[in-house]
């Protein structure tokens, strides 16, 4: 099945210990990489910036990255301009906004309706109270060039919250729970398993998920250097095909439960199954006394009806450029728009999957 000329067989791929690292973990543990002739070592990373730098330095062949990161790197927004591409979307959705439990009683009539998200209008009175005391409501995310960051801003703005009345911080995901508990932050927008963790620990309530804010938007992508793909075209294709198989394997619910068990192991997330499993099974824990919300696409990895779910489309990239500009991360999007087809490589994705029937579920 593998191409006859594989430029490189032994690869190092970076991942973050998060729920949506599932496709990489599954591909490794269930032999999907091997199926395509690859010997992949997964290397756990602790920060996104180091993940990026290691890919740029060739210490990693490829990595799981936040969807805006290849754009930021290719445009030189976060340092040196280093052309980076994504040929494959690993997951959609998966983030959520969780607020400190102490604010729940202040929501009054805006409290969670059955199965419904909470709009940021619900926290307007809390924001105003804080401002009256000369303080600001404080939110944390994990990286500036992330959908977490932009989705949080969007949720706040859509609820009529003046962003100048909010303090935004970047803190490591592993510190979110402690910061919420100590009251140093009032809420956060991150991916799994941290939202479920906060609800299980009765420290927070999950107000909205990324599915409520930007429906089905790419969250994590496979990123490699543009030069790496040029030097290793067949290897890149094999890597994408293996991950695509893993994503499709993750479509079935019983398989997802298995994946949750894998992820909870000590070499990956090292966390309780009852924290990791809910989002993978389409269930969003919201608040201690309430039944969870049913969101089937909470963690979305593939769709047998539509191969485009894993395609890094230029339209999605264009949306990101818009929000990056709105958030002050990008001055002039016109140059970036021209670059986009060289970053979000929908052409490569199509090339990989239209020649044969590999897109079809196995």
């Amino acid at each position, binding site marked *: 099945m593998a191409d006859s000329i594989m430029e490189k067989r032994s690869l190092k791929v970076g991942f973050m210990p998060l729920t949506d690292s599932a496709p990489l973990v599954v591909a490794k543990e269930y032999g999907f990489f091997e199926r395509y002739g690859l010997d992949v070592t997964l290397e756990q990373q*602790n*920060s*996104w*910036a*180091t993940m990026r*730098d290691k890919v*740029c*330095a*060739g*210490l990693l062949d490829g990595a799981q990255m936040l969807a805006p990161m290849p754009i930021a790197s290719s445009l030189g927004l976060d*340092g*040196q301009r*280093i052309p980076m591409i994504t040929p494959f979307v690993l997951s959609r959705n998966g983030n959520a906004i969780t607020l400190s439990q102490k604010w729940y009683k202040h929501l009054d009539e805006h409290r969670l309706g059955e199965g419904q998200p909470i709009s940021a209008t619900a926290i307007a009175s809390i924001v105003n109270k804080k401002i009256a005391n000369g303080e600001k409501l404080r939110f944390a995310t*994990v*990286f*500036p060039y992330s959908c977490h960051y932009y989705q949080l801003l969007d949720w706040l703005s859509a609820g009529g919250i003046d962003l100048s009345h909010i*303090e*935004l*911080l*970047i*803190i*490591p*995901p*592993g*510190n979110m729970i*402690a*910061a919420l508990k*100590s009251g*140093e*932050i009032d809420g956060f927008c991150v991916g799994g398993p941290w939202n479920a963790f906060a609800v299980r620990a009765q420290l927070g309530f999950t107000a909205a998920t990324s599915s409520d804010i930007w429906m089905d938007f790419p969250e994590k992508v496979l990123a490699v250097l543009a030069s790496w793909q040029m030097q290793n075209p067949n290897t890149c294709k094999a890597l994408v095909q293996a991950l695509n198989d893993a994503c499709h394997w993750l479509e079935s619910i019983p398989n997802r439960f298995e994946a949750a068990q894998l992820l909870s192991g000590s070499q990956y997330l090292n966390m309780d199954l009852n924290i990791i499993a809910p989002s993978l099974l389409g269930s969003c824990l919201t608040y201690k006394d309430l039944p969870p919300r049913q969101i089937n696409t909470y963690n979305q990895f593939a769709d047998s009806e539509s191969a485009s779910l894993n395609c890094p489309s230029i339209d999605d990239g264009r949306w990101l450029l818009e929000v990056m500009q709105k958030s002050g991360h990008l001055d002039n999007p016109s140059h970036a728009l021209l670059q986009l087809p060289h970053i979000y490589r929908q052409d490569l994705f199509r090339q990989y999957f239209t020649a044969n029937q590999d897109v079809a579920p196995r």
Partner: protein
Amino acid sequence: MSILKSDTQPLLKLLLVDYNSHKTHILSEAFDNEHYQIEWASASGMSLLHRVRESKPDIIIIDIESPDRDMLDSLNMLSTTAPKPVVMFSEDQNSQVIQELVKAGVSAYITGGVDSSRVRSIIDIALARFKEHQNLKQELADTKQKLSSQKVIEQAKIWLMENKHCSEKQAYHHIRKIAMDNSQKMEDVARNILSLANMLGGSHG
């Protein structure tokens, strides 16, 4: 001699984030106390952020594998704490490639051995690069500010011309006179005019 030196040149304050104490201690030996004042931070997350605020270091040094790196890097982008230059270190002997990246200006990294003159030059370069970057950012912000104030004055002029039926020159002098009489900036006067116009349901837009 050394006393004289430190009198004229203040010590550079380094905050060493202690993620892996063995590696950090070896690194700390590269810094002599004639030029450097070393402070240690063993905290993570919010506590580390507080530590940075209190200790006001000139430069932060952190292990490349530390989970706190994104937080410290972001101090440049978010304004909640004064931005600080951050230098990464890695004891990985195979980090030749990262050194290549440093040459290309990606980020400041200390890799391999901790030969003190080399480490010091990396710190100096990181500091200089950071200052240059901050200056550029400030210039950009100033230019933007200038452009936006020109735009506001322009709009106020147009409103006056349309609603007070005066020439462009008269409108300009009108704004300038109010500004001088009240010792305000022309930009602020223009803003007041526009908000008043808005309130009156004026037709400037």
